């Protein structure tokens, strides 16, 4: 990212600091592969950050390092002034797949987050789960089992589980990548609404440029292999705006800018094939 002189003098301004973090993996053949080149980022409390880049650029690796789920090979992460050495205390996470526990009802999938952290009594846990479910249009689904729900509904439950303990840091790894375009747009709007209400830091990994610019406060653009952050673009468009990409020329300009950085050769085919109507439009425009 760009050197930010202010960040050096006023470190406390940033709730999340990533300093020269890199990660090298050993393959089963004994080769050393750099999954993530030295990357730095400073994130303020309540900021929504999107990580965009081609496949295999290390976005997910950085996401896991930020959450303390994966140790970096070099560099350091601090969260709320503390160095991150294991899973962050108030962490929520959403994967591309819902990863719900099939043997638990929707509600107890969500309340497990609270039970494991010894938060609230059972009645309060249930109440909070119900309220969250209602906010994503799943009122009345509390006693269903995950496999009775559609993919989009499952991912909503997964989102509720990640938010039920009111985390300060929400990590999302291509959370809507496996959904159809209509469901995805609905979930993007739901996410923005929930984020505005709770204001955790969100680190959102995506292939979809349209999704990144319409959701995030800042889009961090990665280069190809070995991945590192090449640009930090602030999306200066008032909210709520998640559902307005098609009508908003400013968002489209940002999308064009991000696409130019990724370059036509760098855009993974998956992003094009699976892109929603929104990002298709962006491609036509650019």
């Amino acid at each position, binding site marked *: 990212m760009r050197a930010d002189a202010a960040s050096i003098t006023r470190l406390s301004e940033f709730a999340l600091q990533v300093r020269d973090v890199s990660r090298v993996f050993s393959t089963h053949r004994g080769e050393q592969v750099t999954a993530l080149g030295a990357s730095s980022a400073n994130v303020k409390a309540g900021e929504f950050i999107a990580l965009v880049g081609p496949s295999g650029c290390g976005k997910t690796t950085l996401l896991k390092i930020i959450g303390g*789920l994966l140790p970096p090979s070099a560099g350091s992460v601090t969260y709320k002034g503390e160095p991150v050495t*294991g*899973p962050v205390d108030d962490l929520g*996470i959403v994967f591309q797949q819902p*990863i719900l*526990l099939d043997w638990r009802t929707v509600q107890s999938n969500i309340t497990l987050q609270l039970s494991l952290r010894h938060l609230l009594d059972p009645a309060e846990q249930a109440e909070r789960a119900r309220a969250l479910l209602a906010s994503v249009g799943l009122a009345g689904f509390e006693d269903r089992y995950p496999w009775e729900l559609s*993919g989009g509904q499952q991912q909503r439950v997964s989102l509720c589980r990640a938010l039920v303990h009111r985390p300060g840091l929400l990590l999302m790894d291509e959370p809507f990548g496996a959904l159809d375009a209509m469901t995805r747009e609905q979930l993007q709007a739901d996410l923005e609404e929930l984020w505005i209400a709770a204001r955790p830091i969100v680190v959102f990994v995506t292939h979809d440029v349209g999704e990144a610019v319409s959701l995030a406060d800042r889009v961090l653009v990665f280069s190809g292999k070995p991945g590192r952050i090449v640009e930090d673009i602030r999306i200066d468009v008032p909210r709520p705006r998640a559902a307005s990409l098609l009508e908003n020329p400013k968002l489209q300009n940002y999308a064009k800018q991000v696409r130019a950085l990724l370059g036509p050769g760098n855009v993974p085919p998956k992003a094009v094939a699976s892109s929603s109507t929104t990002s298709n439009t962006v491609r036509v425009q650019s």
Partner: protein
Amino acid sequence: MKRRRIFQRQATAPGGWGRAVLHAGAAIVALLSIWEASVRIWHPARHVWPALSDVAGVFATKGPTLLANAWATAYETLIGFGLALIVGVAGGIVMNSSRRLAQALWPSILFAQMTPKIALAPLLLAWFGFGLIPKIIIAFLITFFPILLSTYTGLRAVEPEKEELARSMRAGPVAYLLRFAFPSALPFIFSGARISITLAVIGAIVAEFVGADKGLGQLLLQSATNLDTPLLIAAVLLLGSMGVALYGAVLLAEYLFIPWHISQRGGDRVAAGEI
């Protein structure tokens, strides 16, 4: 309204349980009829191919003897299987917890598995005599491996995301095992248990062949020596029924413990959200 629908219609063929029982019952009656008819038509010697009615007579006259022997075999089978379940699952968990331990133990376990259990029977007989213990040990040894292997495989097959999710939720190793990994592995463990329960009966019978004072295997040998074929066939039928009942018990446990698994869901296999 539609809630729980899938549980109610669980694991049933089209038409439900009633029809399934009817179909199976009809097939059994047909087979028994063919048996009885074959004897009425060809009149084979009684010690070669007895009539259904002769065998039924054995159940009537020697019922208590048959049941006592069946109970001995069932007891050996169940204790052996139960021990294998406990040790196999615990072993799978331990092996999964340490890569080094797994590397150290696998060759020995594999060697033990590949050695025919029957080869140990004379030794066990020398150590423990003609009682139940050698049979229980053979039944245990023969059933232990599928359960160990399926537990180990089931635990290793847990999605990495599930493990990351658990860590993100601050679950410790024990909470991870109990809340995430073990339930995920249960379908694997049950398929191992299904294989094991059929093997357990074989193990007990084979051990009885080598030397026993009671049990259906012992009764089989004895009736063959005496050319008492009706008794032999009665013992075989009882053994078969016992095997089916034990297998059914495992299926019932599966139905009770993992109703959420896809193999247990009845009805049309579509997500309710898509209906």
